[in-house]
């Protein structure tokens, strides 16, 4: 009996790999990728509804502006030209006249107006208003429209078929900084109401979905993959690929394994796996993530000593941030002087807080603080920064602090617990990253008392310390030069006052199999959007 079982097993085991596998037909151009993997990766989001997912959205829809190829500038996409009045409150945009939707209809200013009214409808059913607000909250009549008092967003008006106008409620010299995620929907093809935005099957139904990007939906299996097919009317030319299949991986390691097994040709990869990939077979794409990683102190909940600048300075001197960046993080991160991760704006006299444990001890003594008075610092980590590499960096930080007598303990939390703990002031220091793109830095959010990290939450008075004034100077700076200069001044203020403890900014990586030709990828925060010229990609064996 046992023998028979063993034989049966062996036969079964041999049979299995022989089963047929569906493969691309000869001559067909198919690319399998994991474009947005890991927890929170692209699965079923719609434009405007999440902060991320642009890497897929731009394959199906066209925004008014995009980031440039390396996230250092903003550039028009389907906008041809734009100009403003003298006080930056009225902006006129001219659209390209060669943009068509996948059903052959032309994209016009009426579609822009339709999208604006649609997305600001009082009953729009989205989970995350951040993107809607980013695109439209600065426009006149937004509150009235959102509250249901107005039938339209009066600040957006059609001038002619290819010209539209934004009237802003507050001046903004860089209005386009908030327009990169403004996708334009086809008025003629949207057959659902704002209230059904999230629940309609329109977005992933090949029979209904209409877009103006290089691809349209061909097949979609939730939690499994999305298959895109070319939009023959795409204004930059019909894509070379016949099918682009992006698989969904809830776990990042699983995606890397699929990449190594040759099942997908591209995936986002965490820096620690790069050495395991065959150098001859893969091209590594990398770039600045513009996500600043830092510790923020909850001043209202922490021991009072932390309000003393010298204690915070001691923290900075005690930790060898450079060594952690170079060794523990294997050179994938660089040290930050402040939260602004943009090197080009830095002034010359920034303190780099180079490793100096003696200085740290001195500062503590000067402040009259015995490290043991600080107790054990209760750290919490945002789940997005709990990967193995960051855990090592945190443990190294812990070890360095322990050297000068400061004890700390880290708690890793899930997202709802994190935010609850954050609002309830149930911690001493938080460890997380903040997306800090050069053209839409989170200034109001970070440096004002009313912002999301406002003084009323963490107990730092942003008005009294001069940050609020600096923020409005930056926001109203009329020219780019003045803007970057003011950002540099902000960085200097932060570097001196240390409202939070800046640590590193990281590179992010993607690995592409050399089979893919003319491929481009940049680790833009949230996926950009940037023009990755997906219409040019093709596969060659």
């Amino acid at each position, binding site marked *: 009996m046992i023998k028979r079982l063993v034989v049966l097993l062996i036969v079964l085991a041999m049979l299995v790999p022989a089963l047929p596998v569906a493969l691309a037909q000869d001559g067909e151009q198919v690319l399998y990728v994991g474009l947005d993997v890991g927890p929170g990766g692209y699965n079923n989001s719609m434009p405007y509804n999440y902060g991320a997912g642009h890497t897929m959205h731009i394959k199906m829809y066209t925004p008014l502006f995009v980031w440039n190829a390396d996230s250092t500038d903003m550039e028009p996409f389907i906008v041809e030209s734009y100009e403003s009045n003298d006080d930056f409150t009225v902006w006129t945009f001219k659209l390209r006249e060669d943009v068509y939707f996948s059903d052959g209809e032309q994209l016009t200013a009426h579609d822009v107006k339709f999208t604006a009214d649609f997305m600001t409808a009082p009953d729009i059913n989205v989970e995350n208003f951040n993107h809607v607000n980013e695109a439209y909250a600065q426009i006149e009549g937004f509150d009235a429209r959102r509250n249901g008092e107005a039938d339209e967003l009066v600040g957006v008006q059609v001038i002619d078929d290819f010209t539209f106008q934004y009237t802003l409620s507050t001046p903004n010299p860089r209005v386009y900084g908030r327009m990169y995620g403004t996708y334009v929907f086809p008025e003629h093809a949207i057959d659902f109401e704002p209230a059904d935005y999230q629940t309609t099957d329109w977005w992933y139904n090949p029979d209904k979905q209409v877009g103006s990007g290089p691809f349209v939906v061909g097949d979609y299996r939730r939690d499994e993959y999305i298959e895109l097919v070319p939009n023959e009317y795409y204004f930059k030319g019909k894509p070379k690929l016949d099918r682009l299949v992006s698989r969904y991986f809830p776990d990042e*390691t699983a995606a*890397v*394994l699929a990449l*190594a097994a040759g099942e997908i040709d591209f995936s986002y990869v965490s820096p*620690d*796996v790069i*050495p*395991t990939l065959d150098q001859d077979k893969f091209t590594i794409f990398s770039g600045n993530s513009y996500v600043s990683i830092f510790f923020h102190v909850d001043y209202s909940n922490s021991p009072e000593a932390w309000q003393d600048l010298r204690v915070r300075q001691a923290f900075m001197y005690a930790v060898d941030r450079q*060594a952690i960046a170079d*060794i*523990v993080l294997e050179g994938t991160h660089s040290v930050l002087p402040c939260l602004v991760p943009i090197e080009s704006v830095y002034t010359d006299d920034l303190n780099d807080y180079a490793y100096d444990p003696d200085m740290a001890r001195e500062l503590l003594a000067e402040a009259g603080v015995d490290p043991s008075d600080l107790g054990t610092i209760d750290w919490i980590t945002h789940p997005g920064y709990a990967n*193995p590499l960051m*855990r*090592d960096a*945190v*443990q*190294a930080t*812990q*070890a*360095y602090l*322990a050297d000068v007598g400061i004890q700390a*303990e*880290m*708690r*890793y*939390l*899930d997202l709802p*617990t994190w935010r609850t703990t954050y609002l309830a002031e149930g911690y001493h220091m938080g460890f997380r990253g903040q997306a800090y793109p050069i053209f839409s830095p989170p200034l109001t959010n970070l440096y004002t008392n009313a912002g999301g990290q406002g003084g009323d939450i963490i107990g730092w008075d942003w008005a009294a310390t001069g940050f609020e004034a600096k923020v409005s100077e930056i926001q109203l700076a009329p020219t780019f030069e003045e803007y970057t200069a003011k950002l540099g001044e902000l960085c200097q203020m932060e570097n001196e006052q240390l409202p939070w403890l800046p640590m590193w900014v990281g590179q992010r990586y993607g690995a592409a199999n050399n089979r893919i030709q003319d491929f481009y990828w940049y680790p833009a925060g949230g996926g950009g959007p940037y023009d990755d010229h997906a219409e040019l990609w093709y596969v060659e064996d």
Partner: protein
Amino acid sequence: MSEQMKPLTNNAAQVVQIEAKARIETPTQIAWRRFKRHRLALISLIVLVIIMVMAAAAPLFTRYDPNEMSLRDRALSPNGEHWFGTDNLGRDMWTRTIYGGRISLQVGLAAALISTVIGVILGAVSGYYGRLIDMVIMRITDVVMTFPPIIIMLTVAAIAGTGLTNVILIIGGLRWPATTRLVRGQYLSLKNQEFVLAARTMGLPDWIIIMRHILPNVMAPLMANVTFAVSAAILAEAGLSFLGMGIPLPTPTWGNIMENARSLTILQDKPWMWMPAAIATLTTVLCINFVGDGLRDALDPQQIM
């Protein structure tokens, strides 16, 4: 197949001799004598004691501090200086492994003990008395079995905070229903056997029948269950830290050392950063298993050795 079987017939004289000898020994002495004959069980017991001693007296077996970082000596493969190599922060893996045993053995043994004690008491009472008592206990067991562990852990972490005791209580407190059902099943089928009926007619109190007469017959599946409970608890501790309530880093535990293998680089090229913990867990669990084997043979009232 049958060649390896023990002789089918017992030598009558031998039986008499053993029984004669048994009369002058206490049951504990008999058990110990039988256990000692089981060589593998004895070796396992010794290994287990060694592992426990090394964990308890970890500082005596290493000259490193488990959390002492040395970035210069980072990711070294095993060598004379660092027997098990070092991890990504240059911490000595041998030290972390033996220190890790402190937490992991405590969690594994204590949680298994808790779940076994609760499980045996409730299961025995439930199976022996039956009827209403059985119905009530089993329905409570049903309720606990259908609890979602993840949510319980989140909730407990939020209310009671984290720490070794809570981890042990949570793991032990969620595992007992399985033991209860197992023990109850055994009692259900054993309570109507002749030896129980005989004991009952002799007027022995229930608890003596439950503990002295039936329990030894339940030892076999119970020992297996304890073995699995220990390994499950050691692994569960690592899982807990992902929900924000395990033993916080950098304190090493076998569970969180094994989690290093999440990184593909470590899995593929640096086995020393996770294998020692896996081998330690495997050895511990195997030893407990073999000790359990020996214990079962030693305590089995029907087995004649």
